[in-house]
């Protein structure tokens, strides 16, 4: 029903509400489902953004009834949701919950899922529309995708509505496996039906990067090599591997953070203005950046692994002493790199990036450091106190933007000090920032892929990472090489000091 046909719709701020659908979560008894997916569904329900006719089928190996699973999800919502728990809101979700305990490769189990989907179609009017959420380890992935593909066109699958597939990271463990995974996916689904999640893209402040760059005339003219000295991107965590040792041992920081979140932040920082905000326009520009990334030599990469140390005043063990970690593990928990984007805008402008665990504090920031003033007339007085301007984008925590500028210290003479002008995102917009998963699940239900990564982006990201990992095979660093609670190994500082620069002060 378009506004052209219906003149009464003009000017009405109708919220985008998805069409009726059923959400099938594979890995429904896992941590992600409890901590992120259900709290996100609840937040959408509170804001009346879920489809009017909606149901969720949980699929996992854990033996339990629908009632037990629903009770567990209710408890998870009470513990993790950002809104106060309201029985009437929960009831709108709970009425459409179904649980199937099955091995993913089991035909009978898949028959049961199909039967539940048909039941939801009939009872709740979900009209054959399906969103499949793959909250499962990569090993289980191919089996499920093949199974879904086979059933898609069959009568049991009920192919009368649309289908969308949400895929959690990691998407492969190298370029070859990612390509194989893509081939598997594209045998049964079109690219437009596949939604590869990088939850960083769902964060408001990451999207605000686009607003900051392209909605403000003052930044874009100076967003280039002529005015910017270099860029620093930091994704640091103060926590260790926690319960993820099994995954982390085979992934390391380069696959866990660098390959996806960090490279996406580089792409958003360096991309050209898209012609509009449609999925393909934005992703076309991002993939151009990823293709332009200069293949770095071994000296441009640093890796590290944390030893025991102090985090927030508490003694913490080294990585090799963590539960589930090989005592001789050579997995890196820190990675830093100097990258170049080989294009007209960014030639010779380094992007220093780093990510790691058990660092001094949790923060994700993008720092744009501008060139120094060419000739400050008060250079002698200012001395080292006069620092270049830095535009600092805080992705988390304290979401916002700061601009470091030089200001005169009151009093006689001309003494200059660096001060920060702060824009605190939550201070200006007091609505409570939605969690990334809320936005991403809603977008997937609406079929909007702007904030999801496309196959060619993933491919370019792995191409770079494969080169680095191949170089790493040739030597064996001495691990651990940094203390927990610090900013990584000394070689990370050396990486940037070689260029006469330093990591931002914290």
């Amino acid at each position, binding site marked *: 029903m378009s506004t052209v046909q219906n003149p*009464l719709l003009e000017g*009405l701020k109708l919220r985008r509400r998805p069409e009726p659908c059923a959400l099938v979560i594979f890995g429904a008894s896992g941590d992600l489902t409890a901590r992120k997916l259900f709290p996100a569904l609840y937040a959408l329900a509170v804001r009346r953004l879920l489809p009017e006719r909606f149901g969720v089928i949980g699929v996992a190996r854990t033996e339990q009834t629908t009632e037990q699973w629903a009770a567990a999800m209710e408890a998870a919502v009470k513990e993790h949701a950002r809104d106060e728990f309201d029985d009437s809101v929960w009831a709108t979700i709970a009425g459409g919950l179904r649980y199937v305990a099955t091995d993913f490769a089991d035909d009978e189990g898949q028959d049961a899922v199909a039967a539940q989907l048909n039941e939801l179609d009939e009872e709740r009017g979900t009209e054959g529309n399906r969103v499949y959420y793959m909250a499962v380890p990569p090993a289980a992935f191919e089996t499920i995708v093949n199974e879904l593909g086979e059933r898609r066109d069959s009568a049991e699958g009920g192919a009368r509505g649309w289908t969308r597939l949400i895929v959690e990271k990691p998407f492969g463990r190298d370029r070859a496996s990612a390509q194989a995974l893509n081939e598997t996916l594209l045998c049964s689904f079109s690219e437009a039906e596949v939604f590869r999640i990088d939850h960083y893209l769902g964060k408001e402040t990451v999207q605000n990067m686009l607003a900051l760059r392209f909605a403000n005339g003052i930044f874009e003219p100076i967003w280039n090599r002529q005015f910017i000295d270099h860029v620093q991107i930091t994704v640091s965590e103060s926590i260790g591997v926690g319960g993820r040792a099994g995954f982390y041992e085979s992934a390391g920081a380069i696959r866990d953070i660098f390959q996806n979140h960090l490279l996406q932040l580089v792409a958003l920082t360096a991309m050209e203005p898209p012609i509009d905000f449609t999925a393909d326009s934005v992703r076309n520009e991002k993939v151009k950046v990823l293709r332009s990334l200069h293949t770095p030599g071994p000296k441009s990469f640093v890796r590290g692994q944390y030893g025991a140390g102090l985090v927030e005043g508490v003694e913490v063990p080294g990585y090799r002493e963590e539960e589930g970690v090989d005592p001789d593990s050579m997995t890196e928990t820190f990675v830093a790199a100097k990258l170049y984007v080989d294009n007209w805008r960014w030639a010779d402008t380094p992007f220093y990036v780093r990510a790691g665990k058990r660092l001094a504090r949790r923060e994700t920031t993008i720092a744009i450091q501008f060139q120094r003033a060419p000739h400050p007339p008060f250079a002698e007085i200012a001395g080292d106190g006069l620092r270049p301007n830095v535009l600092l984008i805080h992705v988390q*925590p*304290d979401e916002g933007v700061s601009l470091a500028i030089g200001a005169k210290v009151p009093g006689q003479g001309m003494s200059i000090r660096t001060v920060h002008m702060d824009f605190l995102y939550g*201070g200006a917009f*007091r609505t409570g920032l939605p969690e990334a998963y809320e936005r991403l699940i809603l977008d997937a239900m609406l079929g909007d892929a702007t904030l999801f990564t496309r196959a060619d982006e993933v491919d370019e990201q792995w191409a770079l990472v494969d080169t680095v990992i191949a170089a790493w095979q040739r030597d064996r660093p001495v691990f651990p090489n940094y203390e927990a609670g610090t900013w990584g190994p000394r070689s990370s500082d050396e990486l940037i000091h070689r260029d006469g620069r330093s990591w931002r002060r914290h």
Partner: protein
Amino acid sequence: MAQTLTNTTLAAVERALNEERDGGAQRTSVMTHVVWAPPAWLEAAERTLAGLSERHPSRTILLTPAPRRKGGLDAVVDVREFAVEGSSRCIASEVVELTLKGARAKAPGSIVTPLLITDLPVFCRWRGEPDWESPELEQLVTLVDRLVVDSSEWKGLPGAYGPLAGLFDRVAFSDIAWTRTEPWRAALAALWPDIRRIERLEVTGPQADALLLAGWLRSRLRRRPELVHRRAKTLRRLAVDGVPVEAPPGEPATASDLLSQQLDVFSRDPVYEAAVTAA
């Protein structure tokens, strides 16, 4: 703590604001929010404003005209701090309550102008029905980017919509009564295409809401359905040609919520303007 200033000057008000801001919280403003609240509306205005400065960090200037009192300016200056969720930091919003005594009640423009935050939009919530010929309305129309009214507070309907429409080319308007009808308008829009042939619209609710709904249908459908209006304090029933319209789900929005929505709107609303013209 708020500072109370009697027979004061704007310079003293500015000084008091600076002193109140010394608490260290970061001032964050997205607009200057002017409220014109004659004494009869003051209590209602303060109720609506409660919590609003937290949702829309701003400098709020509450103007109360007191033309019969001896000339002068009284002020209460307060800087309110709010914690930012998920952060250790606080932000500050400023609230300046001014009583415009004597001749100053007719000159709000010259009093507000020095207090506006440069370059940020200025919203004015006008409580009650304006005196359409008054200098104070004229001054504020010239000064603000958006004037927010609630035509259900007016007694002179539908006649008052005439002078209101006369101001559309000079300032953008929001009408809380119009905003309140939005869920019902969505419900009516869902009756398309049958509603194209509507002959009679029955509305149980405030007169303004009824007039605006009828004006909206007239302007959008280019028909003149008969309006049957039954007075009620809230908009609670609609029927098209005798058939009740399904009520929108959920509780009606509060006065604060409705005003809050309008403080996020910047452009003119041509659909509303057409509805007023046809009301």
